[in-house]
Each structure stands twice: as structure tokens, then as C-alpha cells.
């Protein structure tokens, strides 16, 4: 395992990107920070800028107005980084896939490493998804 990957796995700094979601996945991501789930005990914290982030948590269909912004955020994130598609919308487009504002799903725009489906995925399953990926990462 390269040094970079080893460092990446130690303490994940997460940056949250919303590309036109219904804000439910976003609330569940926030829930991760609050006393019941409290992911900070695993060394995971939400970073305020993509330049500090190891992981991008992306939600929403990525609509035509924010597609450039999402790309820009991805470019600003230092590599290697992990891109996680949270929720059905960013995995496949879900109920909105036929809409005129749809530019996604997310893997059309940026490379995605982890898919966590669900509408919305429970906080437990978001944690499980990240843990599963970290175990696979070599």
C-alpha cells in the first residue's frame, strides 16, 4: 500500500456536495455528526473546503445548473480521493432520471468509487458503506 493511501485511510476528512437533492440524504449525513451516530469517534470529520477533503460525499441528481460546480469541486480535491454517491438519486437518477434538468447521474460526471443506494440511506448504512470500502482499499 502506498504511503498516500495509508495516510488517506487514517482519518477521513469528508466534504459534502449537494447537486440538486431533496435534502434528505443531506440531513442524514448531518445526522452522522450528532450524538447518536457521532462519526467523529472514528476520526471522520466534515471539512469546510474541498481542498482539505479526502472523501467527497455527493447527493442529488446533479442538475444542469450545478454540473460545472460539481466538476470544479472534484478538481479542487487533492488526489487520491474517494467519491461516494449517497442515495438513489446520485447512484442512478431515481425518480428524476427523465427530467429536463437532469445532467447526471453522478458517475457520468466524475468517477465514483462507492455507491450507497437508498432513499435516503440510513446513517448506519452510510457508515457501513464507507467501512466496507476502506477494507477493500489496498
Amino acid at each position, binding site marked *: 500500500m502506498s504511503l498516500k493511501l495509508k495516510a488517506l485511510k487514517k482519518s477521513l476528512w469528508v466534504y459534502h456536495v449537494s447537486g440538486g437533492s431533496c435534502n434528505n440524504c443531506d440531513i442524514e449525513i448531518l445526522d452522522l455528526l450528532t450524538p447518536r451516530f457521532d462519526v467523529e469517534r472514528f476520526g471522520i470529520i466534515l471539512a469546510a473546503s474541498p481542498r482539505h477533503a479526502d472523501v467527497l460525499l455527493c447527493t442529488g441528481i446533479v442538475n*444542469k*445548473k450545478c454540473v460545472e460546480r460539481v466538476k470544479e469541486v472534484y478538481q479542487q480535491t487533492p488526489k487520491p480521493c474517494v467519491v461516494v454517491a449517497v442515495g438513489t438519486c446520485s447512484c442512478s437518477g431515481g425518480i428524476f432520471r*427523465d*427530467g*429536463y*434538468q*437532469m445532467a447526471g447521474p453522478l458517475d457520468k460526471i466524475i468517477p465514483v468509487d462507492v455507491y450507497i443506494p437508498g432513499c435516503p440511506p440510513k446513517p448506519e448504512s452510510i457508515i457501513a458503506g464507507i467501512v466496507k470500502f476502506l477494507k477493500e482499499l489496498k
Partner: protein
Amino acid sequence: MIENIKERLKDKIKEIKIHNERRVYLTIDRKDLKDVVNIIFNELGARYQIVTGIENFDKFELLYHFSFDKQGLIISLRTFLDKENPEIESLTSIIPGISYIEREVWELLGINFIGHPNLKHFLLREDWPENLYPLRKGVKKDGRK
């Protein structure tokens, strides 16, 4: 309340449809719109709710929804616009809050609001193709004609 409105508007009402005692639809001429809204909004004290734009086979239709909260009554003012050149006077001078929905109706349905101070793209991208109005019936749901 309905009687009161009928009396105040008199012959400006072309058609009245009472769906039930809490939902009333009034058809008015588009030239009278400003006067009618002035009476309903300023003098009778209704609360502005929203504007609905609809494309019919031969005409565009705009519905201005107002609510009288004390009575629980919703009055919808219905106006018809021509298909070729749909335009109507902007109500921003009477109701400041109506500005955003007029922009939305303009960009999604292509109805021109005369006298609107800031008729620019609101929900869609700045470089959205011209003359492509997603809510029109000729446009498919994925935004192609």
C-alpha cells in the same frame, strides 16, 4: 364574501365558477387584471398565494390565486392569453413578492410580462436555449422538442 367580491367587481367578472364554498374561480379579461388585483389585494385584503400558468390547445391560461384566510376561501382569477404572442402586464408594482413567480412563468412557459423590472433566467441556466420552454406541451419531459 363571495357576494361582496361580486358587488365590487360587477361587470369585470366574465364568468364565475363556484367549485364549492371554499374554492371560487373568476374569469376576467386580461385588460382588467390590474384593477381587479388592486381591489382584491389592496382593498379587500387578500393574501397573494401564487400564479399558475397553463398551456391549453388554443390559448394560454394564467391563474392568480388569492386567499381570504378569515373565511378559508381561495379565489382564483383566470385570464386567457393568445397563443401567438402571449403577454400580460406585470403586477410587480402592486405585489412586490410576485416578481419571482413571474420570472419562473416567463422562463418555463414563455409568457412575457410587460413592465417586469428583471425578466432574466431564474431556475434554468443562463445559456438555456432560446424559445425552449420546458413546461409547454410540445416539449418532452427530457427537455427536447
